[in-house]
């Protein structure tokens, strides 16, 4: 077939490193108009880090208020706004865009594609995000204040009792959903259609597999989120009765539809983490990933199970007994494929020649701390005991172990692993280890005592608490501030690394595998204009 230069880039062989004729557009237009997967990946990653700091700042105010009993700093209504927007920002603004950033940067390089399949749409999926969060954050400055009904926006809190910014919240969520769906379609199509010749599905790196499955989950459930916020909007402003029993609807129906989206959503935020960790552990254990095929099947079965477990978030809301039992057993079933994964990571390290560079440290912390979060999840899965734990700090501890020491730690692991490839420079080893150890100690001080607080009955989302919870809360807050400050070390590491440092080799980690290490560091602006061959 034709091999003319159809692309507007030099169609040099990738081995000859076309960085000499890389014509990078300059100035602000480079970022606004870009169709380059690396630029868009960078945008996603910076955006998500800014959102992490924003959401983190809200959490700092929450922890300051909870430092001691009584109301000190904020009014209860504003406290509710803080918890709501903190959750929304961290889920939709920090964790998900960070993973999309990884997907953008790494997927085309890992599968030997010249770019994402639909590069212009890729730009659009990114650039609508900052606008959506501008709307969400601007609601703090509206007369009514920001949304105050929790990130799960249960009806009737979000309908009958909502404040004046609900419509803005709904449309902001719509834009986030559009962004996610387009990003996910791009990922799926890229993986299905753009793999280098010879790279069969079962030869794809596990990283690619996990993003493939995650993107499928996103396409399946983000429209359901769009549906449920639309019903919320019409209930609030147009007089429909979806969630109003007086009109024949049911507020519990809101929870069903929301969690049908919400539970796959939590796997959307953890499956890519599995992919990153499954890439890093073999590299620093200098062994192949143990049980590749079982990892693929485990990821797929977690994804499938995620569609039939949603009501375990609602055991105390009221459900027929058969429903409670069904959702309890299905939920506990998820422990099986997850156990397969943890076993495989440990088995990969078994008798490996381990070394403990920063990406590996974060990955090891991930394996241990994510497993703690998984176990507390298993406890929550049991209907009878969930009646005790529901809506307490035990739940808060559980999902922060999964999302912070799970997802966020994997994001740090991945960032430290690929930073040399992205910037062309090695980062400061000692500073990055300071980041790791400070984060590790403070994050456990922050979240571990929450288990005890929850078991003792401290409810979540309340700005005040009974005196007996005071000591633990003090330590939790101190851990929170320390964790927040520790993240500034990461910022310092990244900025120093971009500015300069020891030049990185094409493959700075001796145990690393994958096509991304066959191109120079920093990766040329265009890679794999001609697909490499994979045996």
């Amino acid at each position, binding site marked *: 077939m034709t091999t003319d230069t159809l692309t507007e880039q030099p169609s040099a062989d990738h081995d000859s490193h076309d960085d000499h004729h890389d014509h990078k557009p300059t100035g602000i237009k480079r970022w606004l108009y870009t169709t380059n997967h690396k630029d868009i990946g960078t945008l996603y990653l910076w955006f998500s880090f800014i959102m992490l700091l924003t959401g983190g700042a809200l959490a700092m105010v929450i922890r300051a208020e909870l430092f001691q009993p009584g109301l000190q700093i904020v009014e209860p209504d504003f406290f509710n706004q803080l918890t709501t927007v903190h959750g929304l920002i961290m889920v939709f603004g920090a964790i998900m865009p960070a993973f999309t950033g990884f997907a953008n940067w790494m997927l085309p390089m890992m599968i030997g594609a*010249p770019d994402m399949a639909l590069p212009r749409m890729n730009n659009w999926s990114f650039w609508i995000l900052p606008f959506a969060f501008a709307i969400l954050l601007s609601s703090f400055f509206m007369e009514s204040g920001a949304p105050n009904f929790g990130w799960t926006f249960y009806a009737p809190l979000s309908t009958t009792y909502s404040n004046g910014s609900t419509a803005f919240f709904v449309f*902001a969520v719509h834009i986030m959903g559009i962004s996610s769906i387009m990003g996910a379609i791009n990922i799926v199509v890229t993986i299905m259609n753009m793999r280098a010749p010879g790279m069969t599905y079962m030869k794809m790196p596990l990283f690619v597999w996990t993003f493939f499955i995650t993107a499928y989950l996103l396409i399946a459930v983000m429209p359901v989120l769009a549906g449920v916020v639309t019903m919320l909007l019409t209930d609030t402003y147009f007089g429909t009765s979806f969630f109003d029993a007086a009109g*024949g609807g049911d507020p519990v129906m809101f929870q*069903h539809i929301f969690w049908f989206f919400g539970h796959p959503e939590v796997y959307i935020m953890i499956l890519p983490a599995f992919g990153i960790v499954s890439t890093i552990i073999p590299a620093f254990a200098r062994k192949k990933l143990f049980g590749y095929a079982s990892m693929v099947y485990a990821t797929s079965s977690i994804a499938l199970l995620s569609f039939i477990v949603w009501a375990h978030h609602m055991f105390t809301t009221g459900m027929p007994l058969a429903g409670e039992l069904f959702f309890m057993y299905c939920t506990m079933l998820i422990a099986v494929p997850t156990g397969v994964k943890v076993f495989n990571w440990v088995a990969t390290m078994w008798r490996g020649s381990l070394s403990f560079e920063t990406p590996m440290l974060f990955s090891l912390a991930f394996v241990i701390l994510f497993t703690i979060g998984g176990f507390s999840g298993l406890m929550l899965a049991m209907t009878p005991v969930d009646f005790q734990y529901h809506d307490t700090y035990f739940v808060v501890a559980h999902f922060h172990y999964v999302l912070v020491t799970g997802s966020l730690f994997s994001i740090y692991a991945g960032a430290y692993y690929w930073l040399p490839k992205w910037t062309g420079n090695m980062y400061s080893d000692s500073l990055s280890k300071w980041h790791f150890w400070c984060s590790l100690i403070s994050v456990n001080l922050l979240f571990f005592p929450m288990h005890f607080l929850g078991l003792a009955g401290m409810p979540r989302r309340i700005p005040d608490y009974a005196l007996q919870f005071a000591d633990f809360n003090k330590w939790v807050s101190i851990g929170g501030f320390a964790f927040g400050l520790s993240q500034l070390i990461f910022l310092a590491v990244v900025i120093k690394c971009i500015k300069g440092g020891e030049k990185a080799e094409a493959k700075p980690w001796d145990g690393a595998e994958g096509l991304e290490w066959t191109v120079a560091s920093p990766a040329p602006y265009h890679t794999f204009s001609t697909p490499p*061959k994979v045996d």
Partner: protein
Amino acid sequence: MTTKEYESYYVPAQSHWPIVGAVALFLIAIGAGSYVSTINTEESGIGGYLLIAGICLVVYMLYGWFSNVINESMAGKYSHQMDNSFRQGMSWFIFSEVMFFAAFFGALFYARMLSVPWLGGAGSNEMTGAVLWPEFTAAWPLLKTPDGTETTQMGWYGLPLINTILLLTSSVTAHFAHSALEKDNRSGLKLWLGLTILLGIVFLFFQVQEYAHGYSDEMKLYMTSGIYGSTFYLLTGFHGMHVTLGTIMLIIVFLRVLKGHFTSTNAFAFEAASWYWHFVDVVWVFLFVFVYII
């Protein structure tokens, strides 16, 4: 593996359309947000104008963006692989639309099979009925809500039945148009495609008639008439919006056919529009069965 040459994949240069589209969506969101916020109050702001400005900007963006894509395609820059990307992208987009409707069908089934019977005391909910609304009896369609709002049922015969026939026929004519294109029969293509568009427009016209009938004093079927009115108008309304979108797609494809675009081997836009059309038809069949008949 033997040496084989690969088609190169077209990676577009920078484009300003996406950022225009992002600004457009931003205007739509803040416009719609402030418009909806004040809908039940006396206040009036600039929300409506922002919304209209956003929609105009989206139209402008789509026109420019698609012109780019069409020109690139006509210039032969797209490989077979690119065509595949478009096809897969469209299929996944339609899948996401299916899931959007699934949320509303889920609400319909939940209300019909669970929440309305529970309000009437089914299962272990005897006290709900006895204490909250002792007068309430569960039924579907729910013509009298627990708080006493009354309405009437939209029958399946008459306009809905005619509309069903119209849409099913339009699926067939869309298929004939595709066959004509494959046989390079341009006049047949124009005829069948034009007929499909016409059927779509007539469908929408009747849909508006049906809504007017529903909102008349005779029927009193409003969006505010409890869960029956809510599910009825949101399901058929979103379907109608999708038919509108599908009709616009078909009209654009028709204009391109008149300009001589599409060949039997290169007709992605045509096929995407017709897939979308078949999708809205299938949704209608489900609507007709579960909203109107049963």
